[in-house]
């Protein structure tokens, strides 16, 4: 049976999505150089296009690609050894601790090393995010630049700088030692959370979300959970993201308008994602002390368990926000807690909290502060002040769907 070019292309696309991290991670260890590894993996995918057409799709595409990419990496290294490289190489593990079988029976799964190297705390978080999307997810510089609304040249320079820092400072290609592990896992989870958040609510554009990026975030969370099955926080993050994602279809109505959680048709929530998410939350909460993502996931679980908005257990949500704020204080958490106060206690009580937050320079241009303030003013019947606050929120909002929601509120207030 001969394959059509379309079938081959689709197999390669699937292998790109599912196997990129695995192939690159294994190749990077052999190449001892991230740039070389990337080139070799790109080359292996190009070769696959020709070979798979002629010979059929291999039973284990990831293993096929890894064989081709690592072979080329070895050739290149031999050649460059003759040329005497100037740049220091990626520092390998002196001892190959636990070379686990990655399921192919051929190559150990090196994806954890890759993730920890990309998310090393000596790199800035924006570099960590860019490197993770490039090296772990296999996105192009152009795609990443578009997602973060920066020029492609800027993004490329950021990635080059990060790779140079890895080489110059000898950031190692290994899984951190046990003592450093919790802190290092936190850095990885922060990056994954950020990728999902940027995808889940787009800061700009005419769509509420960027589903491609949100899916990358979910895939990353799944991968990290799979690779670190004992980490309660990794379970919690995946649970948190699944519960958030479960509401995706209900967030926008047929006309493309934003639907707040209180007005969402809960039959549109994805029951499978909720079930999986709740199970993970339970696992995470069963391993105290509960971490930051454990608390966020628990809040998501309270929402998921309410069959109707009116049945939401706001006292419990407020309690969880109190714990979150006490241990991991941040103005954004404080603002979300204020929303919980408005339902657990009263909008007036929440307004007092928000008035204090308005003084915080960290939130000066945060669109949800003005929007939350406006909603609370509206709920307490302070129409004129609400109008001003909605107008202010509008000036900080670059997302067309969110802007349309704010405009709708403004129209309602103006016609009073």
């Amino acid at each position, binding site marked *: 049976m001969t394959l059509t070019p379309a079938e081959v292309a689709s197999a390669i696309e699937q292998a790109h999505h599912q196997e990129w991290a695995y192939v690159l991670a294994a190749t990077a260890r052999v190449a001892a150089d991230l740039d070389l590894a990337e080139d070799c993996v790109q080359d292996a995918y190009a070769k696959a296009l020709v070979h798979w057409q002629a010979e059929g799709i291999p039973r284990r595409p990831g293993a096929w690609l890894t064989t081709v990419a690592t072979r080329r990496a070895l050739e290149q290294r031999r050649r460059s050894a003759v040329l005497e490289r100037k740049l*220091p190489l990626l*520092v390998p593990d*002196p001892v190959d601790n636990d070379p686990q079988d990655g399921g192919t029976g051929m190559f150990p799964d090196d994806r954890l090393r890759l993730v920890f190297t990309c998310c*090393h705390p*000596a790199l800035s978080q924006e570099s960590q995010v860019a490197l993770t999307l490039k090296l772990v997810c296999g996105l192009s510089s152009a795609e990443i630049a578009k997602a973060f609304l920066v020029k492609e040249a800027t993004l490329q320079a950021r990635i080059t700088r990060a790779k140079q820092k890895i080489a*110059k*400072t*000898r*950031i*190692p290609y*290994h899984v*951190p*030692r046990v003592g*450093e592990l919790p802190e290092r896992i936190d850095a990885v989870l922060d990056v994954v959370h950020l990728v999902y958040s940027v995808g889940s609510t787009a800061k700009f554009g005419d769509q509420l979300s960027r589903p491609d990026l949100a899916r990358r975030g979910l895939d990353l969370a799944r991968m990290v959970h799979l690779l670190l099955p004992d980490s309660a926080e990794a379970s919690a993050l995946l649970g948190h993201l699944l519960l958030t994602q479960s509401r995706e279809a209900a967030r926008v109505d047929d006309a493309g308008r934003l639907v707040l959680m209180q007005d969402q048709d809960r039959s549109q929530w994805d029951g499978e994602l909720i079930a999986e998410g709740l199970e993970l939350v339970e696992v995470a909460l069963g391993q105290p002390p509960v971490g930051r993502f454990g608390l966020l996931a628990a809040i998501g679980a309270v929402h998921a368990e309410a069959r109707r908005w009116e049945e939401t257990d706001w006292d419990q949500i407020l309690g969880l926000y109190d714990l979150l704020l006490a241990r991991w204080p941040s103005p954004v958490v404080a603002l979300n807690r204020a929303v919980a106060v408005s339902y657990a206690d009263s909008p007036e009580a929440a307004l007092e909290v928000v008035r204090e937050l308005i003084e915080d320079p960290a939130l000066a241009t945060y669109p949800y502060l003005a929007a939350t303030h406006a909603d609370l003013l509206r709920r307490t019947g302070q129409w004129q002040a609400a109008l001003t606050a909605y107008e202010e929120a509008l000036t900080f909002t670059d997302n067309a769907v969110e802007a349309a929601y704010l405009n709708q509120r403004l129209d309602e207030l103006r016609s009073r």
Partner: protein
Amino acid sequence: MVGKYLVMIYDNEAKWAEAGPPAEEANHLRHQEFAQANGAALRGGAQLGGSDSATSIRSDGNGGFVVTDGTFVETKEVMGGYYIIEAADMDEALAIAKQVPSPMGGVEVRPIIN
């Protein structure tokens, strides 16, 4: 293969002045303990004179020099000492650097390029 790193100790001098000689003596002891615990990795190190003893030299762009009194960059925390360490990789270097006593500030780690 190992790499060398410079660990620069940055301190707030005003805080040291406030704390007085007993605090400095205690800090000396802590540095001795650090040096003993990490002797195998240490390749050098010293305490520096205070920023009031610093002299900076800049090129005047015409082949000459401008010599001025004071540190090169004026900051609240100034470099008060350094260690040169040898480590297998950045993680090992950071683990050692975290042990360097710097109660009135912190440290900066830089790789030494061969």
